């Protein structure tokens, strides 16, 4: 009895911490309703600055970091084979991934190494949207999937820029998961 008295609160704290740690790093704001045409071509569009107006200019992500983010989005979407092809700046693509940077903290590798405990962490919150481009002038571009994605690097052994790679990975993973679910639903509908 004494053993449980001592250990139960510890288990409770650990469970809460684990639950917090395993929490999703995103909030889907627009769920994909129908599977994407797998022979379609996608491209990576612009990633714009939507940081608060008083955000210090020097602390904003650099153009190189945004380019790296676009590179990772291209790579992750290709890896997941959601589209027939994911091209860079492809004007004829049927789908385009666009995004906004909502929050950014560059962090410091040295501070992470010397102090730790989350101090010096690199953080980013982005809004990513998958848009179906209008096929004719009468139609309008339509957001078919969107979400806000957050990532943090608090480990000193990793580069702070890893946040962009992780966000790109999350985006591709969630989209793929949703695609699979929709296809499964479609197949079960056909079978019945």
């Amino acid at each position, binding site marked *: 009895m004494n053993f449980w*008295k*001592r250990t139960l*609160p*510890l288990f*409770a*704290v650990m469970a*809460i911490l684990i639950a917090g740690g395993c929490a999703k790093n*995103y*909030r*889907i*704001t627009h769920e994909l309703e129908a599977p994407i045409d797998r022979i379609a071509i996608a491209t990576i*569009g*612009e990633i*714009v600055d*939507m940081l*608060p*107006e*008083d955000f210090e200019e020097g602390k904003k992500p650099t*153009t*190189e*970091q945004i*380019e*790296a983010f676009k*590179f*990772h989005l291209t790579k992750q979407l290709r890896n997941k084979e959601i589209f027939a092809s994911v091209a860079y*700046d492809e004007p004829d693509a049927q789908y385009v991934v666009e995004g*906004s940077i*909502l*929050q950014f903290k560059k962090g410091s590798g040295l501070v992470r190494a010397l102090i730790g405990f989350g101090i010096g962490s690199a953080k980013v*919150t982005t*809004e990513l949207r998958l848009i179906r481009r209008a096929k004719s002038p009468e139609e309008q571009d339509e957001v078919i999937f*969107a*979400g*806000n994605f*957050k990532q943090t690097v608090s480990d000193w052994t990793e*580069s702070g*820029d*890893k946040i*962009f*790679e992780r966000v790109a990975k999350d985006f591709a993973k969630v989209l793929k998961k949703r695609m699979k679910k929709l296809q499964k639903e479609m197949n079960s509908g056909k079978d019945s």
Partner: protein
Amino acid sequence: MDCKIKKIYFLVFVVAVFFTASQVLAATASLIELFDGTTYENVKFRADKSYKVISFKIDGKKKNISFTDISRILDNNGEDVTARYLGKYLRTSQTAQSEAVETVQKREDWLGETDPVREKYNKPLWSVAFPVSVNFSIPAGSYYQGFKAGVGFTGEILIAINRNLSLRGTVSKSGMQDDLNEIAPGFRIIDDNLKFNVWKYFISLQFSNGPNWSANKKMGLYGFGGIGAVSHKLTGAAIIQDPFTDSMFIIIGSGEGESKLAFTSGFGFVGLLSPSFGIEFGATLDMIMIGTRQNTVAFDPYGNVETALHMDFHVGLITFL
């Protein structure tokens, strides 16, 4: 209950209070209006400032809306409380409109072929690179009988042609050494001052897959193939003694160079330590065309080309300009 358990209970209590408080802080809005004109009436929502979304349930399903899409939130009294929940992410339709115009402008700039950032990203990681390494060279083939592996050095220059291809110029001193025990088996070695100098000169075409510091790709792979020459020179002298007759013999290196046509191929890895500095390691196989030897088959007048091989392992540093 001792003091330690009390502390643990207190910690659990604090965590539980925070969790509960975050749920209780949900507010009711009489209207949530989005920039695209969509409206939600009489919803109980929660502002998640971490993900910059507002969450609420509609028809039993959870709905998230990004702060960037929200035009205004009215409370139960009809008062505009948008600023309270969105904070610095509050945007009026007018600012959203001006941002949209800016975005289009940005996109046009971005897609411009002459955009400096785009040019910078698309150009090769470096224009010129200088790898310097230590190599361990292992000879193979009858041509190198009497010589053993050793440590040498390599200096190279890489000139980028495009993002993946570059021209690789190599000058390498192989560390191969003479092995008198194999040259004169059974003889006693009195003195050995023989020096076997093998220099290699190659021009190769190299394909590299990264690395790229700005894309956070710290490790890259490369492979290359090329043509060149290998020169051999044996200098100095050695004294050996016949253990049965005690006769002494002197082996003198001719000092004359002998250059041979050679082909090289190899692969390796580059790891970046900074945007302009890294380490590299890899392996190279050189095939040296020794010459022709008369075939023992009488009716074959052409003979065969004899080859020798060098297997090199190298590790070194690389500087990018």
